[in-house]
């Protein structure tokens, strides 16, 4: 359990350090160092869980089980690689005169703040603390969205703040209702602990939980980016600095979904049916389809990929909602591969935008000719996110499709249509950007693309074979969530 | 022995072909109140041509000079598989009626290439038209043949003829349709009036002649001979499939002689029929040939349907 405390302590110290020292030239490297520490701690934690099984802290305030341990590792990993990317990226932005030292100080301390919030969401066993951390994540990132201080970025940040704030307030109402239901059956001391609630789920009042779930779903769903609550997402992703978009897309959305699923497990236990799942399926499918259509009319490259994130979150929500071992397994896998791929894509997108000097899709052309690594990175990343094998996204989408075919065959064509539309929407924009002749004045930039290729390599590996320990966690989590293991 | 007989029959076929052409010309001349040349005139012409030194266009490649041999041998091979005076000959088993169509296609392929080889407008025109007409004729012909082969349930010509012989005289509507279809196709494929006029060199109406305009000497002789064999092939097909009576089923001298006589009479009659129609009809515009051939196809189709509906319905 010490590992978990270390995990939380490191970013906390990071905030303090960056906040106190201000920006120096090697701050980026310190950031990498801190994230490396976190990552090592997460590995330590993972090894622990692998050996012992679920871990509880002394007062049950923290819980590490197979559902969140892999997300913790993923978070630490993406946090690390993104910090590796963000060093030279932010330095370049500073050279361009877009940022100054004060804002970089803010950036780095809030980066750690965001990581802290993410770890807290994942590790805590207390639903109330989870809510607090979730809100904390919003607060940490909202100033980063407006980091460039352009009118657009301020607008985006304001929308992000208000919409997520209102949304998350609803989640709090849901949490209060949950607490209320819990207090009715037992002591109020541990009434918000997820593990306690889960054990007594069948005793909770199903009526209350149903209503609570509506609030929770809409609240956290705003952060997941479910249509029609998604409106902040493309704005915030496109206007903030790219490393922020990478972690927002790769981590924050996942964690929000994680929160919803944790709650769904309680609700399912109480209601003994899948009514909560149906709600999630509806939202998921709607998000998926609408986002797929939106892809077609994007003009800004980062907006494009943020809609793609909405689309993928839709698939996951749909899959979790469908329940059943196959779909759940697929959704868990999809969380992993999506955040790996999407953060890798945002890294390349950031560099691509720097190469072209703009985020306007129409003006980014011939990347492969200009800087082959960025071009290929973007292209292969898009291939991966569009669900082509042997990348892992394919595996999970394949399983989702089959599970749909099994349980709701009439939805399968809809899903298929959505995947087709989304794919066309992505590629019609990406292809002209990477291929073709290099336009005038487009010059290569200094870029560190190792994170991209490591991420894509991992996704590739996951598409070919899922390593045993991960498969083990996935199936245990599946067992936990859906009640049985896949096949 | 049977192989010898088969070779003999093939040679006979090739040898008689110019005679049929002469006879046809003779009939036409008489019908049109003209002085007829001798029946042997085609032989003389062929002989004359083989003795001449061929003149070849400057740009012509080996395709042009080798095509006549290829065309001729493909046609001869086609002749070898069609029963002329006797059935059950071993050569008939080498290939069936579909392969026969294949041989025609083979010859036509090279004829058309030869037309394109010299690089004049005429050659291209002839090739283009020839390929057009044959593309339309081929389905019609196969439709007619299918009617027949479905009745006999074989595509082997020899077996089919035997089947018709054994059945005796049965009045099959499908056969009537198929017969007419095949006749129409035969006229188109052999380049007779009203589709093409073998006697004209009028530039805009030429089809076959346009392709071979540059040929001379032995090359021309081969091509002419091959087209005479082709004409006779269609005649024999029509005569022996639809009216097989008289063809030799054994290999006795008597039967063979009788068979020869029968086929000569049948072909003579067919030629008279053809010359009458050529005298009565005028040549069509090129773009009416499609209607003509679709009519042939329709007949073939009707034949097929009447076979299915009227004759073999289950």
């Amino acid at each position, binding site marked *: 359990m010490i590992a978990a405390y270390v995990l939380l302590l490191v970013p906390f110290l990071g905030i303090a350090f960056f906040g106190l020292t201000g920006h120096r030239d090697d701050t980026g490297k310190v950031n990498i160092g801190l994230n490396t520490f976190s990552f090592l701690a997460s590995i330590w934690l993972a090894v622990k869980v692998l050996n012992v099984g679920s871990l509880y802290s002394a007062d049950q305030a923290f819980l590490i089980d197979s559902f969140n341990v892999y997300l913790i590792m993923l978070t630490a990993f993406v946090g690390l690689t993104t910090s590796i990317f963000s060093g030279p990226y932010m330095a370049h932005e500073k050279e361009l005169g877009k940022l100054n030292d004060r804002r970089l100080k803010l950036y780095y301390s809030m980066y750690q703040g965001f990581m802290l919030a993410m770890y807290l969401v994942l590790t805590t066993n207390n639903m109330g603390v989870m809510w607090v951390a979730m809100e904390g994540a919003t607060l940490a990132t909202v100033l980063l969205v407006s980091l460039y201080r352009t009118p657009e970025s301020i607008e985006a940040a304001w929308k992000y703040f208000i919409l997520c704030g209102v949304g998350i307030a609803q989640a709090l109402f849901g949490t209060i209702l949950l607490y209320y239901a819990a207090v009715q059956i037992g002591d109020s001391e541990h009434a918000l602990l997820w593990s306690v609630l889960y054990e007594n789920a069948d005793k909770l009042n199903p009526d209350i939980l149903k209503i609570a779930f509506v609030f929770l779903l809409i609240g956290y769903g705003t952060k997941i980016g479910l249509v029609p609550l998604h409106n902040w997402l493309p704005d915030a992703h496109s206007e903030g600095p790219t490393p922020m978009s990478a972690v927002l897309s790769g981590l924050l959305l996942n964690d929000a979904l994680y929160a919803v699923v944790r709650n769904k497990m309680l609700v399912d236990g109480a209601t003994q049916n899948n009514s909560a799942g149906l709600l999630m399926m509806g939202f998921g499918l709607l998000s998926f389809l609408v986002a797929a259509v939106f892809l077609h009319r994007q003009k800004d490259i980062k907006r494009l990929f943020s809609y793609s994130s909405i689309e993928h979150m839709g698939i996951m929500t749909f899959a979790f909602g469908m329940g059943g071992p196959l779909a759940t397994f697929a959704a868990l896998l999809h969380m992993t591969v999506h955040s790996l791929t999407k953060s890798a894509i945002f890294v390349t997108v950031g560099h691509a935008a720097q190469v072209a000097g703009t985020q306007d899709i129409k003006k980014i052309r011939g990347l492969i000719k200009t800087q082959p690594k960025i071009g290929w990175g973007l292209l292969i990343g898009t291939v991966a996110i569009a669900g082509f094998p042997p990348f892992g996204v394919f595996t999970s989408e394949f399983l989702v499709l089959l599970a749909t075919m099994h349980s709701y065959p009439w939805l399968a064509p809809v899903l298929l249509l959505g995947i087709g539309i989304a794919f066309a929407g992505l590629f*019609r924009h990406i292809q002209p950007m990477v291929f073709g002749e290099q336009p005038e004045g487009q010059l290569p930039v200094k870029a560190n693309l190792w994170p991209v290729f490591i991420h894509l390599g991992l996704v590739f590996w996951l598409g070919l*074979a899922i390593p045993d320990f991960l498969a083990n966690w996935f199936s245990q989590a599946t067992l936990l969530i859906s009640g049985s293991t896949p096949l | 022995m049977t192989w010898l007989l088969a070779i003999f029959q093939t040679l006979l076929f090739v040898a008689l072909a110019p005679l049929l052409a002469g006879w046809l010309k003779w009939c036409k001349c008489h019908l049109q109140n003209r002085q007829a040349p001798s029946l042997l005139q085609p032989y003389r012409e062929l002989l004359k041509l083989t003795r001449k030194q061929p003149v070849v266009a400057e740009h012509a490649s080996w395709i042009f000079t080798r095509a006549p041999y290829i065309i001729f041998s493909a046609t001869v091979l086609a002749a070898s598989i069609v029963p002329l005076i006797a059935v059950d000959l071993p050569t008939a088993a080498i290939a069936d009626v579909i392969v026969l169509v294949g041989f025609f296609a083979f010859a036509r392929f090279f004829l058309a290439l030869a037309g394109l080889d010299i690089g004049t407008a005429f050659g291209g025109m002839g090739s283009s038209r020839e390929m057009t007409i044959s593309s339309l004729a081929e389905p019609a012909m196969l439709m007619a043949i299918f009617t027949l082969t479905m009745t006999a349930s074989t595509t082997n010509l020899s077996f089919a003829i035997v089947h018709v012989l054994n059945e005796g005289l049965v009045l099959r509507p499908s056969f009537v349709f198929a017969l007419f279809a095949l006749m129409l196709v035969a006229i188109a494929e052999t380049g007779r009036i009203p589709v093409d006029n073998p006697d004209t060199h009028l530039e805009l109406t030429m089809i076959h002649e346009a392709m071979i305009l540059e040929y001379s000497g032995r090359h021309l002789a081969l091509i002419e001979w091959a087209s005479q064999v082709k004409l006779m092939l269609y005649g024999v097909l029509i005569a022996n499939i639809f009216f097989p009576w008289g063809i030799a089923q054994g290999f006795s001298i008597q039967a063979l002689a009788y068979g020869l006589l029968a086929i000569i009479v049948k072909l003579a009659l067919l030629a008279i029929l053809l010359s009458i129609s050529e005298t009565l009809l005028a040549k069509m515009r090129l773009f009416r040939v499609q209607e003509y051939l679709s009519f042939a196809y329709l007949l073939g189709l009707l034949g097929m349907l009447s076979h299915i509906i009227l004759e073999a319905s289950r």
Partner: protein
Amino acid sequence: MMTMILAYNAVLLSFASGLLALLSNQRAMLMALSQRYLTSDFHYPRCRKFLDRILEENRHASLHRRAVFVLLGLSGVFAVLAGLAVMMGQDSLTDQIGLGLPWLPWHVRFDGLSGFFYLIIGIGVIAVSLYGPAYVAFYQESQNPFAVLGLFTGLFVGGMLLVLLADDAFFFMIAWELMSVASYFLVAFQHEHSANRRAAFIYLLMAQVGALAIILSFGVLASFSDGFTFDALRQATLSPTWASIAFVLALLGFGMKAGIVPVHVWLPEAHPAAPSHISALMSGVMLKVAVYGLIRFCFDLLGELQWQWGVVLLVLGTVSAVGGILYAMMQPNLKRLLAYSSIENIGIIFMVLGLSMIFMANGHPQLAALGFLAALFHAFNHSLFKNLLFLGAGILQHQTHDLNIDTMGGLIQRMPQTSFLFLVGCMSISSLPLFNGFVSEWLAFQTALQVDVLDNGVLRSLIPVSAAALALTAALAAACFVKVFGMIFLGLPRSRNSEKAQEVKDKSMLYGPALLAGLCFFFGIFPNLIINLLNGVAKQLLGQSLPNDTALSWLWLAPVSANKVSYSPPMVLVGVLIAGGISFWYLRRNLETKTMRRAAAWDCGFGGLTPRMQYSCSAFTMPFRRIFARVWLIDERVDKEMQGAMDMEVKAVHYHLQVQDHSWPRLYQPITHGVNQLAKQVGRIQTGNIRVYLGYSFVTLILMLWVIS
């Protein structure tokens, strides 16, 4: 097990060639490596010398290319060996690879059907790797890096081979998509042309839609069984409706890849865009993999066949065959033409497969085997001659820097060897006797003619009609390839480029086409070799093979029974040789007339034939254009430029002709338009006003609460 190792080797070698290709341009790195590790304690001077020679500045690139293609070629050789071994062994080997999902390792199965397609791929790959080194040398490294080309070629070939090995739905889809994606990158290889980019996009889009349909069709089967292995899917018992749904989905998916009308549009776009040896692989081989998929799905997995499916296949096949060749005829671009002709041939294959299905469903397995055999044999033949023609097209493109048929002409004088090989291809594809294309069409006709055994009147009349359509197709194909060969090689050169064209310098480029041409002829004369192999496949899959067709002797082909039909290509060859030889010898015995006299061609007395007087492509096909006018969207204009007093004198005449496929405006443009419109409408929900967004949130909340209570 030996066979299995051969099969794996084929896959591994193709991947290896791809990886090796990645190392191109890394000469400096290799130098550094060799110097670093091989300096001090390296005791093999010869080896050292060898390495130095390999890494020599100006030889390294070419050596490296050769090495990549040698690996690819070896992969082809192994594929051929493995295919032959498994077909001769007549057994099916199974294996598992420890990749994939935790509870579902990749299942591998190598049986006769896979083996046959292995053979097809192997031959294609061997030909391509003989041809490749010289061909790719033309690409500029800076513009079109070889690393990309080589890598994706390796992945592409490997993907195709894996598709054939797959024995569970998941592995199958991975291999399938690997094949699609790798070939997408190959289509986009010369991405500086916008047409190529567009082609690649359409290709990938349709590949993706097709793949989704295939996944769904597997999904249908999987939801009636317990698992995704093909063994489990075979056990699935479906109601006829569900089986039909699965069939339609599979047909859509595999048909899209195979290029069936009307879902064929990607094909004529993508095949010309890729480098020629890749077009050869795509057209000659990849389409066959789609056919394999359909066969595997319908004949193997679905089990109980329904005759209606056969009718669907028959009709679609007929439409594709006739439509494909008619569209092909109008193309001035050689590679587009060949691509459309692939649609035609795939149509023929589907048609015969449909017949086979009909016979199978009506309880005539022996006739079904005949049709099945004809289809597979045609697939084999098409892979040979289409490969040959595409490779030939590549040579032409390099020697004349053009693919427009209308600018060529007279090349037979300048490129005699190429022209001869190309002629063989043209003759095969026109299904002339003595060549392999004819044999398979002949078998197809024989299958169709067995219709008399059926009881259903509709089928009895439908099948002969489609057989007549097949005849039409064959005749049109002959016309089309007369045009192709005539316009390209015969007559007079129509442009400076073709006037200056020369035979390829690097003769190794001709080895690949020569191999294919030789096989075309060889299997045209001895089709029994393949048919015997295929008999085993049919026996494995349909449980029925043809009767002992060697009743007469090995020279004869008698698929139904010896006293019904027979065809003996060797005898025909002998006959032709005798007849041709005799006439040749006889007519040239006179020494005086033996030599020919050369003279100017007849010019009607106008004097001076010019190349512009020749028939052109569009002139040649004009009669067809008029007769089948409805088939195309024809935009034909004649613009006259006038001058002089009152503008009465004609100065110049411009002829403009554009022939378009119906499927664009009928099927694809409406879809694109629809999606864009939909996006526009849906876009309106995102107004940019935060109060509206809050309103969404509010209304959603209210609605949800109302729904739940």
